[in-house]
């Protein structure tokens, strides 16, 4: 069999339905094979978006997302997206073409050392030097990407390898990698110690991170929290790990979290961290807590434990498995006083929605996302970009029931929302649902070309484009750090006619500048089968989150 065909056969065996790619010379053999393969190729409009499509697809479906790019510039265009997936532990496989084996190292046309360039932010990578290794490498790549702490894996395949003819078929099934044996089960002694601590704690808080979602442990988290009434706070990546309408829900922590959540976290005497990294962005507003707080830290990646914060009781293991162990143990304790205290804290730090003129003359984005919460289905997916738009949607669009919230939390990559939301649409083609891409006028313009894909495939994505004519979040930082008026490079002055742009792609569009109008057009937009763009005008000075 031709190696290029074998590659696709291997992908089929991994249940790959879609590859998000862009062709070029070094991938000619693979694209020739794709022509007759059942795997559907989606032509993205810039390789930079490819890994984001794969990421959205993976997060929605729980399967591995796949992107393709040719050698050299195609491959280097993937770099930011791969890093984005790495920082958020999203399982994707990136396949790149490479120049012929005998040309590697000669600075040949379109040669780039992509395994080298992506080494810092791939979980693993391969340069295929022998076509006979293809079945093993592809099996391993999917296994590594999707198990343990998930992450991106890159496979670089020279063009002449794709053209080799090989006898070996799909003989390789069982993965056996000596240096990779993820540990799922928490150490029983540690679990005993942890549950004893939980039983003793007066003011425990569960701090849930992206690991709960990646480990599909939402149900177990709910059961564990409800068992002894332990309040739950999430990180930005943990949004969706716990229903936001639950009485034990205590918000989102961090520099852009809710005030009250940070206060509650500061008051806790025990933090049960499940799959959160304790990154600088999450802990920057936690002041007092290191000395008088105990930490139980559950993570599947041993290197995360104790990296950013000293841990009292580390547990290496999978969120779901460890939570099941926790639930089986006696941790009973009455937390009524603590919950009453939290109620008080919430009242002392209420969410502030109203704005003054001139900000109140245009759309109030907080109110907008709150009402959007009420008008959308219980299983919608909202993909937020980066910037104020991201924080507003994270804080004011409520993730309840089956809803999902995705964003680029770790790397904060602008331009993520549109391709990732498209990935969500491809993952749900056979059962279309409400999918929203929320972005700012800055971030939108970073992925604008992908409108071509949306139009071509009539994806059912609703783009909520928040235009404030500014790179709002950076502008806010400039104001905070240097004072009012110290704005530099954050104006997006040229007034783009986004309605005409949407029209050019035959995408239905609306432009609104009042909350009432938004409330009117949103149901229409949702009802419309196919893509819609809603431009929501927000005052540039609306910078409070």
């Amino acid at each position, binding site marked *: 069999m031709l190696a290029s065909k074998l590659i696709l056969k291997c992908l089929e065996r991994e249940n790959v339905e879609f590859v998000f790619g862009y062709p070029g010379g070094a991938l000619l053999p693979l694209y020739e094979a794709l022509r007759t393969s059942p795997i559907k190729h989606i032509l993205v409009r810039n390789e930079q978006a490819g890994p984001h499509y794969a990421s959205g697809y993976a997060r929605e479906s729980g399967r591995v997302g796949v992107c393709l790019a040719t050698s050299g510039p195609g491959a280097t265009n993937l770099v930011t997206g791969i890093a984005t997936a790495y920082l958020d532990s999203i399982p994707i496989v990136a396949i790149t073409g490479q120049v012929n084996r005998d040309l590697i190292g000669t600075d040949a046309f379109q040669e780039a050392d992509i395994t080298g360039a992506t080494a810092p932010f791939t979980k*693993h990578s391969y*340069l295929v030097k022998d076509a006979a290794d293809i079945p093993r490498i592809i099996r391993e790549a999917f296994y590594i990407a999707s198990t343990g702490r998930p992450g991106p894996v890159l496979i670089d395949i020279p063009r002449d390898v794709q053209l080799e003819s090989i006898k070996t078929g799909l003989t390789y099934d069982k993965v056996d990698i000596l*240096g990779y044996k993820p540990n799922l089960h928490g150490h029983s002694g540690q679990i005993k110690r942890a549950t004893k601590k939980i039983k003793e704690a007066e003011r425990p808080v569960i701090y849930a991170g992206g690991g709960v979602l990646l480990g599909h442990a939402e149900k177990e988290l709910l059961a564990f929290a409800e068992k002894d009434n332990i309040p739950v706070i999430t990180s930005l990546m943990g949004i969706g790990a716990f229903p936001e309408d639950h009485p034990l829900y205590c918000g989102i922590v961090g520099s852009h979290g809710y005030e009250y959540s940070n206060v509650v976290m500061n008051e806790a005497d025990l933090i049960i961290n499940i799959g959160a990294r304790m990154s600088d962005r999450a802990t920057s507003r936690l002041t007092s807590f290191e000395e008088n707080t105990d930490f139980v830290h559950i993570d599947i990646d041993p*290197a995360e434990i104790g990296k950013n914060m000293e841990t009292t009781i580390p547990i290496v293991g999978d969120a779901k498995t460890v939570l099941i162990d926790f639930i089986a143990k006696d941790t009973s304790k009455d937390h009524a006083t603590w919950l009453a205290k939290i109620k008080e804290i919430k009242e002392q730090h209420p969410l502030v929605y109203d704005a003054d003129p001139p900000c109140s003359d245009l759309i109030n984005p907080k109110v907008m996302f709150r009402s959007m919460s009420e008008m959308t289905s219980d299983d919608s997916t909202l993909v937020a970009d980066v910037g104020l738009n991201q924080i507003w949607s994270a804080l004011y669009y409520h993730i309840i029931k089956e809803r999902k919230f995705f964003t680029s939390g770790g790397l904060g990559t602008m331009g993520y929302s549109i391709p990732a939301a498209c990935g969500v649409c491809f993952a749900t083609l056979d059962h279309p649902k409400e999918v929203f891409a929320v972005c700012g006028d800055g971030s939108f313009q970073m992925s604008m070309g992908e409108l071509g894909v949306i139009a071509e495939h009539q994806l059912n994505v609703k783009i909520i484009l928040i235009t404030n004519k500014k790179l709002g979040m950076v502008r806010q930082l400039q104001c905070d750090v240097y004072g009012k008026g110290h704005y530099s490079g954050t104006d997006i002055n040229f007034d783009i006619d986004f309605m005409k742009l949407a029209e050019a792609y035959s995408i239905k569009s609306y432009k609104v500048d009042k909350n009432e109008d938004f409330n009117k057009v949103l149901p229409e937009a949702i009802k419309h089968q196919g893509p819609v763009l809603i431009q929501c005008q927000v005052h540039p000075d609306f910078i409070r989150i």
Partner: protein
Amino acid sequence: MEKKTCLSLLVENNFGVLSRISGLFARRGYNIDSLTVGTTENARFSRITITVTGDEQILTQIKKQLNKLIDVITVIELKPEESITRELVFIKVKADDTNRNQIVEISNMFRANIVDVARESLIVEITGTRDKIDAFFNMVEPYGILEFIRSGDTGLQRGAKVLSF
């Protein structure tokens, strides 16, 4: 408190493994004091010895991060009491007819070998622990050290125990 630690790694002999390891140290800001690589009894694997300096927290992180690399099979610390580590050093010392014999004598005391003799210099080959080598340096220093190269530590655990998976 900073301390020097010697790590022994068994790794898959795959393409790029060394650059993955050195890259990890570089981007996480860890200091490598020395690194040696060599073949093992099995062609599929290589053994790497790395000496690093850092506090307890950093050393733990280094071990964990190394373990995360797919090509790294095992990482152990070569503790002085449970292992032997040695370094190979070549030292080019200034030497002429008046002092050549003295240097040879010192070298003999250290069981070092003279591997090159010229009219104005000698090259001494010495293997040993860091202490022994430091002591030797101290002795030949007054004659004038022209150049030297140290291989970096390499070592094995004592006893029948082997580094496996």
